[in-house]
């Protein structure tokens, strides 16, 4: 094993640096770039579902129609819960970056809990709609509504499970600010899911009552 000099060389041309995994041509961690690229793709994913919803808007042949079942006050509360969860996410990342592990664990748990509350509201709403006669094969509104919001709900569920995994892992292995990037990408994902919900809430719910 030869004795190399300290390798903090950076490359003037690309601005890259040497990292533990080898030379990198930018300062962006690989996983963070991957998450951004994934989210760009997910934009098209949700865009297609929202586009489908819009294409079929007002084309249902029979009811229940949106105005019959959508409950704005209720959904406003659940939206607020989801927005608050994003705020807690910011706190969690900040705590981890400052090596405040107890706070990081608390806020991460908080995000998961708030996310679960949001999901609880979704489940309640779905059950209520089904009881009102709206199912996925009742009419085009049922099909497009449930698949769009259901897909979003699955994304939220994945996020909750992810955050809980991070939380549990933090008890089983040493966790410090060095691992912040892994929480950061979970945070990016979570914020994205939140923003998608804002769009859905506007396009599906608010637009009906304007």
């Amino acid at each position, binding site marked *: *094993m*030869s004795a*190399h000099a300290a*390798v903090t*060389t950076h*490359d003037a*041309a*690309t601005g*890259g640096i*040497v*990292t*533990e*995994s*080898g*030379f*990198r*041509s*930018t300062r*962006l961690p*690989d996983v963070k*770039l*991957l998450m951004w*690229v*994934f989210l*760009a*793709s*997910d934009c*098209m*994913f949700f*865009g*297609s*579902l929202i*586009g*489908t919803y819009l*294409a*079929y808007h007002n*084309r*249902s*042949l029979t009811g229940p129609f949106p105005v019959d079942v959508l409950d704005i006050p209720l959904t406003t509360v659940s939206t607020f819960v989801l927005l608050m969860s994003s705020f807690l996410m910011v706190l969690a990342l900040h705590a981890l970056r400052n090596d405040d592990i107890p706070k990081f664990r608390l806020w991460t748990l908080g995000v998961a809990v708030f996310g679960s509350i949001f999901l609880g509201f979704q489940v309640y709403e779905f059950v209520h709609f089904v009881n009102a006669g709206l199912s*996925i*094969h009742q*009419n*085009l509104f*049922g*099909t*497009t509504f449930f*698949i769009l919001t259901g897909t979003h709900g699955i994304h939220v569920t994945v996020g909750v499970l992810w955050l809980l*995994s991070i939380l549990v*892992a933090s008890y*089983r*292995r040493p966790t410090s600010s060095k691992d912040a990037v892994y929480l950061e990408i979970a945070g990016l994902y979570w914020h994205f899911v939140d923003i998608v919900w804002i769009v859905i809430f506007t396009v599906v719910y608010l637009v009906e009552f304007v």
Partner: protein
Amino acid sequence: MATTTHADHKVASQLLRRPTWRNGIGSWLTTVDHKRLGILYILTSFTFMGAASIEAFIMRLQLMRPGQQLVSPDTFNQLFTMHGVTMVFLAIMPLAIGFANYFVPLQIGARDLAFPRLNSFGYWVYAMGGLMIYTSFFLGGAPDVGWVAYAPLTSLSANPGLGVDFYMFGLFISGIGTTATAMNLIVTIVNMRAPGMTFMRMPVFVWMMLVTSFMIIFAFPPLTIALLQVILDRTFGTLFYVPAMGALPILWQHLFWIFGHPEVYIIILPAFGMISEMIPTFARKPLFGYPVMVLASILIAFMGFAVWTHHMFTTGLGPVVNTAFSLTSFIIGIPTGVKIFNWLGTLWGGSIRFTVSTLYCIAFLITFTLGGITGIMVAMPTFDAQAHDTYFVVAHFHYVMGGGALLTFLGALYYWFPKMTGKMLNEAVGKWAFAFVAVGFHMIFFPQHIAGLLGMPRRIQTYPAGIGLEVWNFMSTFGTFIMAVGLVLVFGSVIYGLRKGRPAGNDPWDARTLEWATTSPPPYYNFDTQPVVNSIDAFWADKYPESLHVERVDPAEGRKYEGSHGIHVPGQSWYPILASSAIIVGSYGLMYDNWILAIVSGFFFIFTIFGWAFEGVGGHHVHPEVEGHGA
């Protein structure tokens, strides 16, 4: 070469240890090495291409004369559907990804892709998804709805058999793999270029793969959603494509073509990249107009998302929509034409060596230009009203896809085979094979332009006699025999070359890019020392720095950029192949309404994700001694 291997990473308790086999089938099933995965992609693609060729051959036999009943209409529908699905999704696109997998890291001076296990996952999901679609032939019939699968032909009422489900699930699954690999390539190309390799010093093939990967991540989601909608309609009774409940069949066409048009650029841009490697190598000149070529490709990628409705000119969208997309379709021809001229400019003033690869490049230039011309023709909605859904359009896309992509990939095979195997392919046999392939290709597809304009629609099992179609169909079928001879010769050449090819050495072509700077085949860690770069055509600059007016880079520079632990080689893993298997088994469960199987597979999939996430970094370090190796 001395290597020291440390099991020097602490790993959490794991259920499946990271394997360390270097040989044998286990090493291939768990490999994360981009070179091995590249070879797997290439072998699998050519196998699927063989299947697609047989499908085409049977079709052409059936169409040789009017009124034949060699195969029934139902079988014929399955043949052209599977031919299209196989060629687009399972043969041509993965072939490009395979070459990219192998050569992008080498060309940018990296040691692997950014996420090796994700790379493996992408391959297995593609291979298993493709195999799954082929099992449909034995499980009640392959899909028979055309490779575009227009609604409501795919509804349960119009198509109760399982064939359509195989299409939907199979493509859904393969698409996941393709998207994952594209993301991997983006991170690799952005983040793992050698010191000194700015974006404008990258090989053009790498640029093309970067642009293609962006197209993939934006184009595949609409397809995924469309497939999901049909799956939901057929499995759970949703109403996405049920006209009786008010649904719009044209929604499928929009979603499909928002994917579908970029898809053809996803196929051709890697080919453009390969041409841009081969022509400069064999003309001994740099690519003419490198910045223009890069810009043109980016423009093509953007505009590729703005032309999709030209596949729908006959669906009654009205003159304004048709005009808009006609204009965008004309405009996208401009950067493409500019590229042709730049390739000609590269040849001009060069010192051209006519290897087999060069011949394929020349064939590409002619064939793709012709395909581009007929493309301008069908971009006119009013003429397209005659040409759409006829053999004219079949001829057009075979000229650009077959002439553009297939001929190029055959050329790339001859170009890169020596690097991948250390052996040369026989050039004399290769030139004969080329002649058969090129002549056969034109004989198959040129007459189809005429047949289309004489009134022959596509996707028909037979055609009316006595309206003038006989001679063109006969000629077209005759051409398949000729092309088949060529392809068999290529196949035979590869087998022979693997066993008895002449040793290739590092750089048989006196080439320009970094993959030629290491051994043939490269060691599993690619380069002994991290390459450092200060010019386009980095390897050429190292061999002939005066010709490019640059200083040669001192090879010892690279050591400054190595970590002190030596070269890190990523570890193998079981989880990618296990995760893929879970997805496939779950899909069979859903298709056969076996909910237990589907749910159990789902849980197994989640288990593999956790295993993947927590199995630890793995791998080992290598310290190749400096004497006598690599650049």
